């Protein structure tokens, strides 16, 4: 096969090997790197949400009972408009004290539901319970219920929707 030469110079075969490896690597990188970008690019795109959502009149909410307000927001993912639904539990503790919770369970993002009989927020997925103040009563959640930042303008509750 390969003739062993005593010449100190690079053999023709070795030269070809080096050139082929070099050119092959360049060609591979030229195709390979864009392909990686092609695969991961949608994952690197973020659409920041920064919206104030009106939940209606402050006076319309009952005192002492968490009340669900549902709304939707749409985003564009690729070629499709994706509509996501959100739920905010509005709790007027007293005449003037207000708290607004996200209904997304802090465990694995199922949606919690206020249960009047149990007097707790129940998560149907892994049996988590939060009390009326959003504190963990039972189950696997790592932290209390998340709250929305809010403000009251002209008697209306507005919550701040942020994130991706």
């Amino acid at each position, binding site marked *: *096969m390969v003739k062993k030469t005593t010449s100190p110079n690079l053999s023709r075969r070795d030269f070809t090997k080096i050139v082929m490896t070099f050119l092959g690597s360049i060609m591979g990188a030229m*195709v390979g790197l*864009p*392909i990686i970008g*092609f*695969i991961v*690019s949608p994952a690197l795109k973020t659409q920041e949400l920064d919206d104030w959502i009106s939940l209606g009149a402050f006076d319309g909410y009952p005192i002492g009972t968490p009340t669900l307000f549902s709304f939707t927001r749409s985003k564009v993912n*690729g*070629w499709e408009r994706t509509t996501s639904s959100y739920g905010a539990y509005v709790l007027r503790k007293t005449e003037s004290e207000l708290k607004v919770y996200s209904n997304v369970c802090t465990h694995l993002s199922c949606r919690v539901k206020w249960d009047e009989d149990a007097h707790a927020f129940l998560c149907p997925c892994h049996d988590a319970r939060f009390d009326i103040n959003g504190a963990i009563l039972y189950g696997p959640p790592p932290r209390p219920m998340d709250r929305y930042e809010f403000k009251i303008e002209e008697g209306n509750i507005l919550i701040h929707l942020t994130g991706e």
Partner: protein
Amino acid sequence: MAGKVFAWFDERLGLEAFYSTVLDRKIPKVNWWFTLGSASLFLCVIQALTGVFLTMYYVPSPAVAYDSIQYITKGVAFGWLVRGIHHWSATLLVITLFLHMLRTFFYGAYKFPREMTWMTGVLLFLLTLGMGLTGYLLPWNQRSYWATTVATEIFGTVPFLGDFLFKVLRGGTDLSALTLARFFSAHIWILPAGVVLLLGVHMVLIVKLGISNIPGEDE
């Protein structure tokens, strides 16, 4: 270490023998026209790779096929490049295959004992044209739509079987969602399966029989 690992695999898989049979095989003194087969193989592999990645975003439905391709071209990083390579190397592949066939024909390389290599090559060429035909519809733009209208009508002119072929290709009498779905299926599954099978036979025959000499003037 690397040598030991290689030796372990070599002992079980016969890599050295594979290398010397496939890559160190003896070939006659030939010219640049003999590189067209390798060029076609290279383009075929490029088509397979870029095609696989395009399916990550493409959706074969009349509602969103066009939008998904617009997204590939304008929204995805290097989408224009991957789609562009698939588009242009498809055209280039038909050209290299045609020249490869002309070389084989004019050098008489299709003669005994290489008739099977020639026949599988002809079928591979037809399959490639089929890939072109089915791929042309997928962007689902005006050009795709009317080109496929005409192409399926041409199949309809075949004596006796024409009407049947026309309907089978379209999945009914109309050029519809069914046509798009079956062209996509043919483009990514059925025709490539045929290509892989025949290409395997084609390559084994090339290695087994060797390639022919350039015929001399007195032959």
